[in-house]
């Protein structure tokens, strides 16, 4: 099985935000830790799935678990950065509901060995909406979400880069996630060609997360 170079670049790009996070570890506090963990889990998942793919093992169940962790971590992060109380509560409340939906889907219509068409598409849609709302809130205020830096340009704000990365990732991937069932039926070469979009978007997200860690200020 030969993967295109972009796939390896994508895996390598996980090192950018992790490396910067480690180098500025003293500044990584509170919500930044969630981002670091999220990136770390993502990197580990990619490595595991790649390893399993080389061994011709079904790695989709790993991705299912990763999707749940991804949802929980991002929901926690967004709720802590949300200044509107009812929205914050709603985001936190969505976690158990999503988890329930995820559980039901794994044991019914999606299964463990098939692609996560419905759950991942749903989380993509939810985070597209949440990041849009968060970015609009950033436009309207100087502060951005709760806990954000005060009186700094928005492009020097960690919030902005995390929201931008997440938004670009999910808006770019939502159509792909919706068509994942069809993609898994293609030949390897065709599937890999289609999946190039995902790898490119992942690299973009990692770059955004790297910049977000660079925006961390001395406490």
């Amino acid at each position, binding site marked *: 099985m030969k993967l295109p170079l972009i796939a390896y670049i994508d895996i390598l790009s996980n090192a950018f935000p992790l490396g910067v996070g480690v180098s500025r570890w003293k500044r990584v506090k509170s919500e930044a830790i969630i981002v670091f963990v999220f990136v770390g889990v993502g990197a580990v998942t990619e490595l595991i799935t790649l390893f399993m793919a080389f061994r011709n093992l079904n790695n989709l169940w790993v991705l299912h678990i990763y999707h749940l962790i991804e949802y929980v971590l991002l929901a926690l992060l967004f709720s802590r950065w949300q200044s509107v109380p009812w929205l914050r509560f709603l985001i936190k409340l969505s976690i158990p509901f999503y988890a329930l939906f995820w559980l039901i889907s794994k044991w019914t219509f999606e299964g463990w060995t098939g692609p996560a068409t419905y759950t991942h598409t749903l989380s993509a849609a939810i985070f597209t909406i949440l990041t849009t709302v968060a970015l609009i809130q950033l436009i309207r205020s100087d502060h951005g979400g709760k806990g954000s830096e005060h009186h700094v340009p928005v492009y020097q704000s960690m919030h902005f880069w995390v929201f931008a990365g997440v938004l670009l990732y999910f*808006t770019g991937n939502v159509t792909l996630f919706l068509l994942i069932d069809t993609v898994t039926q293609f030949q390897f070469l065709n599937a890999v060609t289609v999946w190039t979009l995902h790898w490119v978007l992942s690299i973009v997200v990692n770059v955004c997360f790297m910049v977000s860690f660079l925006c961390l200020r001395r406490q």
Partner: protein
Amino acid sequence: MPAPTVNFWWTLLIGTAAFLSLGIGLVTVLLVHERTKRKLESEKTTILRESERRYGDLFNNVTDLIYIHAIDGTILTVNESIAKLLCLDGQTLTGKSIQDFLHPRFRKQVETYLSRISTGTGHFEGRLPIYLNGGSKIIVIEFRSSPVVESGKIVAVRGIGREITERLSYERSMRQSNIKLEKALSASRTMERSLSELSKQMIQFQEDDHKRISRELHDEIGQILTTITFNMEILKRDLEGKASDGILRRVDESQSLAQDVIESVHQVIGELRPVSIDELGILPTLRKYIHEFTERTRIPVFFTEEAVIEHLSANQKISVYRIVQEALTNIIKHAHASAVRITIGRCHAGGLAIQISDDGYGFDPQKITVVSPDAANNSLRLGLLGMRERVKLIGGEIAIDSTPGAGTEINLTIFNRREE
């Protein structure tokens, strides 16, 4: 295994493009908005800095004293003027208390001021003495303070002041000068009243004297002369046919001389105190005098009577007569006029208005106000002074209008019952 169809590619492309463009668009809008906001903030900051610079210049260069202190009296900031006044650096003053610059006996006043200003009831004005150089120099500051309110709370007090030490000193000097001036004016008024009284008495004495002399001339010398004339007539009759023509001629001449002396005496009596004022009234006396003046000098006088003046008091009548007399004498001596006009009428206030005007040489009123070596000038000056004094005594006003080469006009106004 199926290959991706065209529809698949289109669906993926359009779906991805649609959603991705939403994301990219939102991020781009945010960045553009941020850039615009930064630009506006930068402009506002530039304007603010410029305002701060201008305010700073004004704050430090204005001569007034500007200060900001805390509600407990601790100085927060002062401008250069205060620092210069207290001969201290502005930074040194910051942190000190107002009380440090006052004498202990003013502590209570400052406490009252601080408690009043901290209640926020508007501004507070006042004056305070500031002790400098350990109390060796005292300056007085007039100030006006008002509270600085933020979020409904008084956070500081700001104010403006001015040193008024010199001004107070000037005011004190002015007050003392005014007192001295008042005293001098009072003394001057007293002297003026005394002089006026003296002048009145002198004029009165003069009139009484004139009256006495006139009476004596009339009663004694006049009578004697009349007797001499009568005796000469009798002598002439007795000597007719008995004495020579030469003796009779001598007697005639002596009689004629005696007659001339009688006429001269009558004229002098008339000049001194015309008795006809009391017997016939002021108007007939004036007419007679004017007629004699015209006969004597050949200067026509046009006399117009538009009002009755017999109701005037005796003093007023004689004063009017003397003024006309003096005016006509001046016309003969100085004016060399060809005609004179005298008008008696009513004035707007119900009093009498008498105007005497001529077409003579005229004079410069400024030049005759002071004593000069020119005897004619002095004579005119004294004559006019005499007229003014008489007018004042009878409660009237006189205005003398003259221009060299354009004649003279004297306007006399006598008000009812205003004799002094």
